[in-house]
């Protein structure tokens, strides 16, 4: 039995997703793993500051806001990782000399906010109608002190974890890790195990995206 009522190590918390939650943004979404919730907004393509202008593609402006307190190095790294992921997904070259702004606001943090941020950003870009090569799905996994692999750990589980891994996969090619960020101490075998489980979990999230989108489009 896991801390938040889950029965299986490889079980995700209940997923939640909604589109168009902000009225002024070009696209927005909310994504949650249980009580971990992230709000993402997308503006763009819009005007870019001359300093940041790229002549052959759109400039991605990413900002990550914490649940409380000031943002720090943690959030800058999250921004950099998100930029790497989104740059590869978005067809930025069809909007040269413009900016696409993605803002991530954490609204509830019970572990795995980075994964939720990736998922929310991907959905918000979809909602804004920004052309993308693929959709991204991300999950976080952790090895507990006994070496058991836990999918989608809560904050409490993360506290005692031996190592934590965040994997992102795209829906176009699951032989390529779209993004990975691991910390803690772990062996190569553990890493491979985490990667395989993450691959499957990301497939679940991708089908969840599809279901949510179908529900949204169904009444129209």
């Amino acid at each position, binding site marked *: 039995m896991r801390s938040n009522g889950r029965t299986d190590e490889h079980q995700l918390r209940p997923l939640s997703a909604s589109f168009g939650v902000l009225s002024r943004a070009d696209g927005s979404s909310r994504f949650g793993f249980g009580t971990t919730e992230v709000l993402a907004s997308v503006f763009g393509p819009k005007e870019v500051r001359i300093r940041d202008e790229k002549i052959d593609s759109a400039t991605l402006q990413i900002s990550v806001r914490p649940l409380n307190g000031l943002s720090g*190095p943690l959030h800058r*790294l999250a921004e950099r990782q998100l930029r790497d992921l989104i740059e*590869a997904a978005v067809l930025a070259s069809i909007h040269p000399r413009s900016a696409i702004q993605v803002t991530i606001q954490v609204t509830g943090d019970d572990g795995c906010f980075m994964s939720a941020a990736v998922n929310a950003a991907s959905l918000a870009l979809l909602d804004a109608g920004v052309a993308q090569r693929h959709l991204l799905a991300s999950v976080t996994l952790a090895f507990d002190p006994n070496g058991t692999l836990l999918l989608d750990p809560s904050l409490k589980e993360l506290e005692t974890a031996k190592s934590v891994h965040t994997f992102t996969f795209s829906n176009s090619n699951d032989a*390529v*890790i779209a993004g990975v*960020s691991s910390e803690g*101490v772990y062996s190569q075998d553990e890493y491979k195990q985490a990667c395989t489980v993450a691959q499957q979990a990301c497939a679940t999230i991708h089908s969840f995206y599809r279901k949510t989108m179908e529900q949204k489009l169904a009444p129209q």
Partner: protein
Amino acid sequence: MVNPDTFKKLHPQEFHRRFLGKGVRPDGREGLMIDLLNLTLVTPNRIHRNCKRKCARSNGWNTVICGIKAEVAVPDTNHPTTGYLVPNVDFPPICGSQFKPTAPGEFTQSVSEMVYRVVKGNNILDLETLCIEGGKAVWVLYADIVFLNYEGNAVDAALLAFTAALKDTKLPVAVYSDVEGTVRADAADRSVSLDVKRVPFGATFGIFEQDGGAKMAMADPTDEEEAVLISSVTVVVDGESQELMGTFGAQVPIDLMDQCIGQAKKRATAIKKL
């Protein structure tokens, strides 16, 4: 016929692609996955020695100095016997014209955070050993990693400097006095070396696409090469146990990732010998 330098400035992407297509690097290094160690660990005969600290100079042309300062602080009430290890990476404007004398930007902060993620907790050092008096006083180790010359691949260089400095750090015997509530130590005393459990080595690989669309990795990219890569991946390996201590990366095929991990392990073993 265009002069190579001009060509490089005008078409950086194409310039590097032509080299890489032939399996050669612009700076004369051969091979892509072949590991190249161009590393000097300079024991500081004339660079540094204040308090409890030390410097290291590292890979290629990066020049990095890591100074470790030990100070005394009150421990966190939740962890009364745990010391602090505070790594910070700084890119002052001296190390390259792209760095401005302003507050640290996204790049600097994210490199700091990556180093912090690798060394935080009890990963490197049993922080309990930094305890002077439970609940009253612990050591704080400030590891300030300053780049003097930056030419790409920041994380590897920063980690290398950090590891070298930490291994060299020696603390004085500290005495806590209940009456005064102060900690005293002989400034010239250097008798306690740290019990460094793991020695993290970073190995960064640049991922680039070949003509056919196949993805390849090259070890230790320079800053010029970084500009034309599609992404990069950093693997941190413990030189002692060969365990992994962190991976950061994007756009890596799974099998290439395995290759990178293998190379990183080899490299950690090679560096350890130095």
